């Protein structure tokens, strides 16, 4: 019987006990939750999909090390985050570039042209930020988490995050001016 409505901890323990198919419950539950985060970090929806897939497989491999099965989501987020950062490091090493391609703005006929252009410019500027700056920007302004929530997720202090974010604001302002 599928553990559809059961807490994460129950599902994780069932998987560890050998009910491998129950892992699909966790995949369905969380595959979309962090897709936007991964896409914004990696600059590509396709790369985000690969990252989410790899993160789920890695999470399964390491499931016995999940210290708090009831917080599978937070643990999975860290695996996905590591995967995204690793990809960024690999990209920089292989390409010698300091940025990643920006997320192509999807067609949106309802958006005014100016808004679409502003969105595209911001995406391009975000792609030039450091990975850490981009991450805090995405978690704060795209995922709309508080500094306290971000600090708890990524394991740092609110003060450090604010400093990172404020530097990102300055850098974005500078980049957007250059793009005009």
């Amino acid at each position: 019987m599928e553990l559809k409505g059961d807490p994460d901890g129950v599902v994780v323990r069932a998987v560890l006990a050998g009910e491998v198919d129950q892992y699909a419950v966790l995949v369905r539950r969380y595959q979309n939750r962090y897709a936007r985060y991964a896409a914004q970090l990696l600059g590509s929806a396709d790369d985000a999909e690969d990252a989410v897939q790899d993160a789920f497989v890695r999470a399964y491999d390491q499931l016995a090390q999940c210290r708090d099965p009831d917080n599978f989501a937070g643990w999975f987020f860290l695996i996905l985050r590591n995967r995204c950062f690793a990809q960024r490091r690999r990209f920089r090493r292989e390409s010698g570039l300091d940025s990643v391609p920006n997320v192509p703005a999807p067609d949106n006929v309802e958006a005014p042209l100016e808004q679409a252009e502003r969105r595209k410019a911001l995406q391009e500027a975000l792609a030039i930020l450091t990975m850490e700056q981009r991450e805090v920007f995405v978690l704060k302004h795209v995922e709309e988490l508080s500094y306290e929530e971000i600090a708890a997720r990524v394991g740092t202090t609110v003060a450090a995050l604010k400093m990172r974010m404020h530097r990102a604001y300055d850098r974005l302002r500078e980049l957007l001016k250059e793009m005009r």
Partner: protein
Amino acid sequence: MSRGFDPLVKQLLDGERTIADLPPELHAEAAEALRLQSAIDRRDVSLSRDLEARVMAAVRARADSPAKRAWRWLVAPSVPRWAIGALAAASLAALLIGRSSSKQTTPPVTASQPAESAYVKFVLYAPGAHRVALAGTFNQWDAGATLLARAGDQGVWTVTVALPIGQHQYAFVVDGRRWVTDPAAPNVDDGFGRRNSIMSVTPTSGPAL
């Protein structure tokens, strides 16, 4: 050369102020910041419908592999697989936790019966603690599965557990929230920004009691 946003405008972007809180001379800069904010793309990203199938195919392949079966055996909740009644005193992994610093008195070693499992005694000095648990690969990192008991009134906590022969990673959990590595044992990065103590249980070290 470009100038950064005024600190008050950054607070506006952070949602800690409104534009009305800002002096008039910053209103133009605030408007620029709000334009930046309005360009943020919060649209959802759709993943392929077959992502779940791809993940599950990989997972099932791993579950069937001999390596995975061996790993599951190693980390399975331990029902001792060795001869019952052989109460071996094991080793001592002592962790001393002071209120402000950690101090170790006895190096962590594991010893045991020549069998598939061995008893290992963990000792923790934690005078301020109300609850101490042992979590590791051997109990699926369940911080409620293996509790240490007070040994006297001097702040010493102990537990003896049967562990399979092999290598284990572990940590102590003090009061349900503080994860503490064993300062006398080697530790390794767990890949997620924390460190785990690591120990090897061998079948030949130490006499049985």
